[in-house]
């Protein structure tokens, strides 16, 4: 039987260089759907021959939206090469800028990128369904969104010297101590920012309540879940053990980062430049899993800070204690994590050691390999370097956050396509729902290739002879 093909392509192709192809069968129903990630940068190869200490400065250029994640995963890998335990203050300050990045990245995504759908509506006029429309519709809320992102970026600027691509974390620690002015400025804003995020939570919960059936069905599917946890099983974003949970909610394995190759494999598909990680002991495709806010909250038992934990209890009830499967719940999970990041920033700043001036230790490259793992806003990020005796990089392996969700994004697209596409009557609202499925995952496609905001899209429907029979576009 001949298949008909629909291509959804960001026409400008710059918006994350992702496109979707959907195959229909003869009665106009969706047969298969593919999400193509169309960018390859080559960092794993061209870093070979560089000095290991340069990596925390080179690798953030993988992504300007979460450069701190790469900066820190890289710095941790270089600590490992030195074979040193870094001072406590260095850990605290690294985690602090990490919290800053979680706050800026998560709040930007919710309010400025995904928010227009939830606040203005899925079927709102596409000309206003964006952040500018949000500024017009609710200037007060839009200004809060700007301030939230600014606050997160300001933490990074005050502690690390600049907002994007700082040179703060070095092999063995960090290169400057915290000033009292910086500490006081950050502390003074925490409560106000928490109140803004709570407004966001109100919007998200209101949307969930009014659209419960949609949220439970929309791009909802079982998968494994993965994320870092603390020793007691609570949510961790900077430094913990990797926990893998199966689709029933059972903890299958907890392992230290150095064993990641034993448990995570990456599959290559011909139709995407982004690889597909899976849990090796289960094999492919049984071992597919999700990461990021929903993956992490599903994999955690609790959250160690009070306000975030109260929300976490509500989150866990969304599916009666079972892992939450609906992709839309990513938005809610993202906001809960932002509360945690704000509360955790306060804990760090109140730690008696945070003002210590002894911010690094020094040493020579002693280990042939170094592995660094952090929970980036979008999921588990792994940097693995091999060096010679002088510290020159011989090999690099990176598994990037959005990559883990590659299968899930494809699955979400396929399910939403099957649920909403009627090949005989294509509509713009259907388009936005397919996009919305991808948007739940906040794909950082620069780390593979990144899309911020909306994808201008054209869907073309061809018959089996290649004749264009219908198309929809959104200008």
């Amino acid at each position, binding site marked *: 039987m001949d298949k008909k093909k629909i291509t959804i392509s960001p026409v400008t192709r710059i918006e994350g260089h992702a496109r979707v192809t959907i195959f229909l069968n003869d009665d106009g129903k969706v047969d298969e759907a593919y999400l193509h990630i169309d960018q390859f940068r*080559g960092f794993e190869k061209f870093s070979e021959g560089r000095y290991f200490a340069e990596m925390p400065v080179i690798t953030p250029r993988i992504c300007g939206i979460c450069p701190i994640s790469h900066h820190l995963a890289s710095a941790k890998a270089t600590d490992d090469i030195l074979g040193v335990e870094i001072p406590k203050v260095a850990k605290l300050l690294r985690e602090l800028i990490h919290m800053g990045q979680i706050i800026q990245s998560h709040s930007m995504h919710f309010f400025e990128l995904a928010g227009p759908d939830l606040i203005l509506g899925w079927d709102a006029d596409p000309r206003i369904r964006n952040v500018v429309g949000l500024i017009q519709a609710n200037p007060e809320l839009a200004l809060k969104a700007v301030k939230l992102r600014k606050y997160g970026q300001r933490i990074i600027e005050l502690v690390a010297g600049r907002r994007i*691509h700082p040179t703060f974390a070095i092999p063995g620690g960090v290169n400057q101590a915290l000033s009292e002015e910086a500490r006081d400025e950050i502390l003074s804003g925490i409560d106000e920012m928490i109140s803004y995020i709570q407004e966001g939570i109100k919007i998200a919960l209101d949307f969930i309540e009014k659209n419960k059936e949609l949220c439970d069905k929309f791009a909802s599917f079982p998968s494994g879940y993965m994320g870092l946890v603390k020793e007691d099983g609570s949510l961790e974003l900077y430094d913990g053990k990797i926990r893998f949970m199966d689709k029933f909610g059972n903890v299958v394995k907890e392992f230290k980062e150095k064993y990641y190759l034993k448990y995570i494999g990456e599959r290559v598909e011909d139709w995407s430049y982004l690889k597909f990680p899976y849990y090796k002991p289960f094999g492919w495709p049984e071992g597919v899993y999700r990461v990021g806010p929903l993956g992490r909250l599903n994999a955690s038992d609790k959250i160690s800070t009070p306000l975030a934990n109260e929300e976490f209890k509500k989150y866990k009830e969304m599916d009666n204690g079972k892992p939450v499967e609906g992709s839309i719940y990513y938005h809610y999970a993202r906001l809960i994590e932002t509360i945690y990041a704000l509360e955790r920033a306060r804990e760090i700043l109140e730690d008696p050691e945070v003002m210590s001036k002894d911010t690094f230790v020094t040493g020579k490259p002693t280990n042939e390999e170094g592995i660094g793992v952090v929970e980036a806003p979008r999921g588990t990020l792994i940097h693995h370097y091999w060096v010679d005796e002088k510290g020159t990089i011989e090999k690099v392996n990176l598994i990037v956050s959005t990559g883990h969700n590659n299968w899930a994004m494809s699955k979400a697209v396929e399910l939403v396509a099957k649920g909403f596409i009627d090949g005989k009557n294509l509509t713009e609202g259907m388009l936005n729902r397919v996009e919305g499925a991808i948007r739940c995952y906040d794909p950082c496609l620069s780390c593979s290739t990144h899309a911020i905001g909306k994808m201008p899209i054209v869907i073309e429907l061809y018959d089996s002879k290649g004749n264009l029979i219908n198309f929809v576009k959104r200008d």
Partner: protein
Amino acid sequence: MKKIKVASIWCESCSGCHMSILDMDERLVELINKGLELNATPITDLKVPDDDTDIGIIEGAVATDHHEEEVKMMREKCKFIVAIGDCAVFGGIVTMRNYVPLNELLKRGYIETESTVDGKIPTSPELGKHLPKVKAVNEVIKVDYYIPGCPPSADAIYHVLKEILEGKTPVLTGELLKYE
């Protein structure tokens, strides 16, 4: 004050320059209120810039055939082209791949990497074609203004946009011209 239409794209880059645009914080809202109109950008829904766009901001180097088409399209639609950030200005960190043959880059990424199982190099016609060498934007089209930096500071970006809004020719000096 007259409206100024601004469009932007990113090619082979990390999107950090666009983050630096957002780092203008409240000043971005101020510019919008002063007459800066966001046309086709990654944060709006427009597909291609209007034919009478005033400023086209390009982030990133030119690395694929798609990028070449996109920057040419921007040149056609926009009165002034601003190359923003080191990748657009001279190729930046992305040009590190120019010292390695393309097939070796792909082989490492998709076959040799330790976590890859039964790898292969993707060849689907749906995917873009990499150019043998990454290029700066001015190797493909004429560029009118350059804002260097990795990324340029929000202050520098604000200065350039504000000057253009006020009908002046932007010049970066002192603190605003930092190669970092």
